[in-house]
């Protein structure tokens, strides 16, 4: 089994800046108010670099990349 990373959002911290969706449109879209929608939070290996950039770009540090096995939860 390969270890894949999971995108996690602190929904309270998130202010809907939307940079994450610019940098990772394959996995993150925005709702009509600019808040992220993540249908699947598992990050495929080939997108991991982009995911890291999205995490680094979040101005309020609301986006995280977890390599842990907390279980795949619906990311929304």
């Amino acid at each position, binding site marked *: 089994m390969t270890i894949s990373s999971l995108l996690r959002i*602190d*929904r*309270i*911290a*998130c202010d*809907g800046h939307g940079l994450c969706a610019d940098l990772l449109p394959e996995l993150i879209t925005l*709702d*009509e*108010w*600019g*808040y992220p*929608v993540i249908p699947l939070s598992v990050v495929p290996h080939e997108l991991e670099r982009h995911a890291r950039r999205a995490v680094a770009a979040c101005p309020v540090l609301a986006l995280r990349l977890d390599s842990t096995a*907390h279980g795949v*939860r*619906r*990311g*929304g």
Partner: protein
Amino acid sequence: MTVHPLSGPAPGYDDPYEAAGIRLLTGRRTGLDEHLARHGVLPLPWSGRGGGDERLISAVELSGLTGRGGAAFPTGRKMRAVADGKGFPVVVANGMESEPASRKDATLLDDAPHLVLDGAAVAAAAVGANTVHLCLARPRLLQAERMRRCVDERLRRGLDRINVRIQQLPHHYVSSEESALVRWLNGGDARPAATPPRPFEKGVRGQPTLVANVETLAHLALIARYGPGWFRRVGHPDAPGTALLTVTGAVRRPGVHEVPMGRSLGSVLETAGGATAPLSALLVGGFFGSWLPAGPALSVPFTRADLAQLGAGPGAGVVVALPKDACGLAETARILNHLAANSAQQCGPCRFGLPAVARDFTALAEGRPEKDLWARLRSRIELLPGRGACRHPDGASRLAATALSVFAADAHIHMTGHPCDAFHGSAVLNIPQAHVPGPDEWR
């Protein structure tokens, strides 16, 4: 099943309450003397050195008791996680009852305060805690005063070796969520916190914390006395014991009724005297619940698993019977407006998505079909779940989605610009004034 070492002399079928499947509610305030005469002193082993009590935990696991606050999580498993955690466990008794359609916790605290306090002592012994925070809604002054007197009386008689603290929290819909309780007890707002960590890992003062509904605690008080075998004598094999249900709407005897788990919803209504009018739907679970069409719903057993098959859940034990001459869309619109106003205003879906759903739903209920209203409402409802720190948007989404499906025929009439005949009828649900809490009203 072998006789569990905890099994004591339990009330037999000659006990009128037991024969009727009533274990918690007595129908009147039960003082300490009457409580002790009926149930005896709580047989708690006490090491005084902390550490959980494996025997108690396994008894609770065997009993199959699940949380009665809404999540219906196995109580024994939750206790074990807290007892196995790192640190000095804490117990939080949740008596907030912020669900406006529920009265069961207030009724229980009125009727059997000492069962709840016994249960708090059992929970503390099981996980190895010496402090219990009993969380109550701040506006319910009389309730807090009565509970304080009960705690003092027990102390004077040397019944409790734990420290029970009455805590009076702000009374908002989301303030009873377990992470909100912990956040407030730690000096913050009574608003849900970002998780993980969940309270069982890191709760009050960073310690593993067991948050349990007061009804769950009352059941614990009896399991500790009479054993898991006795507990399972009533109810459904997969959902043992009794539950306190608040049954309202078009029923003859609205109020809180104690019902064996697994009875059909129809039989639950019979317990409340039966329907007073032909019914169109049932609201099961509360404002945080689901609408079910009355016909098929009446035969469904009240268990988590059976309700889940219909997309519903027991929630806080609320069943509302909606008569055919009421408008389910109007009722739902009013609930959604209440939920939107009473969110924690923290996450995107509750700041924007939920108020938008409530506005759209109101337009539908009032028969003001703006362009694209139906499609927009559906997509906004679908985007709510899984996107908040707590499950508030999930509950609102489920309520709205089940309303659209159960009241689909009415919705089509409303979409033509004419509310159904029932729209102008009187409202069934009693919804408190929606008041959006200010930033300083969460402490």
